[in-house]
């Protein structure tokens, strides 16, 4: 395009990463991607944490068969790279008659992966609460679920918030994997625009979009870590 002109290194850098013409043309696409990523991220975080919490509570009930199943689920999903699962479901499931859209596959896989990690984090929190707390509560006539809900979880959750926030951020960032199956999220929009324009500026925009989305949560996680550096009475 402007290859004929001799450019200084700084000009070349700016032209490559912050080309105003390219940015002007493609920023609406990146914004569309931002919205898709945001929607996916919210859905994954809500689903993953709720399912993880439910599994940890179920594990606290102490039914042997259920606990074995939960531990297998958690260990398998924490071991597999999410990209493998995404490709497996997106390309494999149609052959057994289950066709899921790209965004749906990313949503399901990342929710399950987050649920697996969240379950382990909540479980660690629940087991860290002294046995005496259970006994005191039960001895006043509170039932199992009431004891869990009013006595144990409020204490457990304080300990779990920082690792949970960090894990949720790490997994929602993986929405970028959707790009390999055509989910129109930030990275997909950015790489598409980059190949059309032959310029890296859309990728810069994409990076800025990720920063805008995740930096507040990273700061929040940092704040949670200091806020809940909480000692037992």
């Amino acid at each position, binding site marked *: 395009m402007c290859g004929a002109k001799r450019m200084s290194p700084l000009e070349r850098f700016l032209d490559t990463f912050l080309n105003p013409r390219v940015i002007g043309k493609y920023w609406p696409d990146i914004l569309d991607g931002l919205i898709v990523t945001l929607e996916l991220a919210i859905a994954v975080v809500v689903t993953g944490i709720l399912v993880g919490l439910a599994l940890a509570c179920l594990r606290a009930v102490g039914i042997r068969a259920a606990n074995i199943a939960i531990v297998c689920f958690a260990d398998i999903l924490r071991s597999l790279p999410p990209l493998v699962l995404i490709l497996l479901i997106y390309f494999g499931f149609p052959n057994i008659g289950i066709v899921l859209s790209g965004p749906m596959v990313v949503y399901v896989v990342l929710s399950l992966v987050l649920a697996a990690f969240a379950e382990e984090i909540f479980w660690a929190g629940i087991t860290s609460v*002294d046995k005496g707390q259970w006994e005191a509560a039960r001895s006043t006539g509170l039932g199992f679920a009431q004891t869990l809900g009013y006595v144990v979880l409020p204490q457990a959750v304080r300990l779990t918030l920082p690792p949970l926030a960090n894990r949720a951020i790490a997994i929602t960032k993986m929405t970028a994997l959707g790009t390999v199956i055509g989910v129109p999220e930030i990275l997909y929009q950015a790489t598409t625009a980059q190949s059309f324009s032959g310029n890296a500026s859309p990728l810069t925009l994409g990076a800025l979009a990720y920063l805008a989305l995740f930096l507040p949560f990273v700061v929040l996680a940092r704040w949670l870590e200091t806020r809940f550096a909480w000692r037992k009475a």
Partner: protein
Amino acid sequence: MKRPMLEIAGLFKAFGENAILNGINLKVPTGELVFVIGPSGSGKSTMLRCCNRLEEPTSGAILIEGTDICGLGVDINAMRRKVGMVFQSFNLYPHLNVRSNVSLALRKVLKLPRAEADERSMAALDLVGLAQRADFFPSQISGGQQQRVAIARALALEPKVMLFDEPTSALDPELVGSVLAVMRDLKASGMTMLVVSHEMGFAREAADRVIFMDGGVIVEEGAPEAVFGAPKHERTQAFLSRVRG
């Protein structure tokens, strides 16, 4: 003779192969304080914990006002309301203030509205002399005060029997007196109490009967003067001479 408030009949408890309680028979008449002593590991805590089914008896019966609490179809949570328990380690809820520690079960078990639950909590805290600490958190009050809150938490449910498992063993010596004073008041108010403790002085003045346990059985029982003054069994004599140093 009065029907006992609490009766333990033929109680056996084993953990796996390990027999811990080997046939306990004990009656606690209404309004009496039965004081339990015995070496560490003799099964005192296990016996107490069977009385509100924190441990399930292997066999035997626990009767509260003549009703077997281990029977089929017993509502365990309703039953536990009748049996207050105070633990060696207090076990207050650290995330709740003193008032909420007491009112939680009132609101969630008795389903009282908050205002009524708070009122009843304050009355219970008043009994243990801690109404003015209602807005403090457990970590902000002394161990003795924490244990008195734990007593108030149990009392607020208006139990028929109170079980105490070494309530002063975790306390600094200067804080023991305030907890014993509350227990003395409770006894004076007519509460039925089963107390595991090493506070022999308290037993002498407040106990109606003293039980000496060893190896999961009751070895000796009698009035405090008799058991402390003239123990009949060798094992009781050996234990008493050990704790007296």
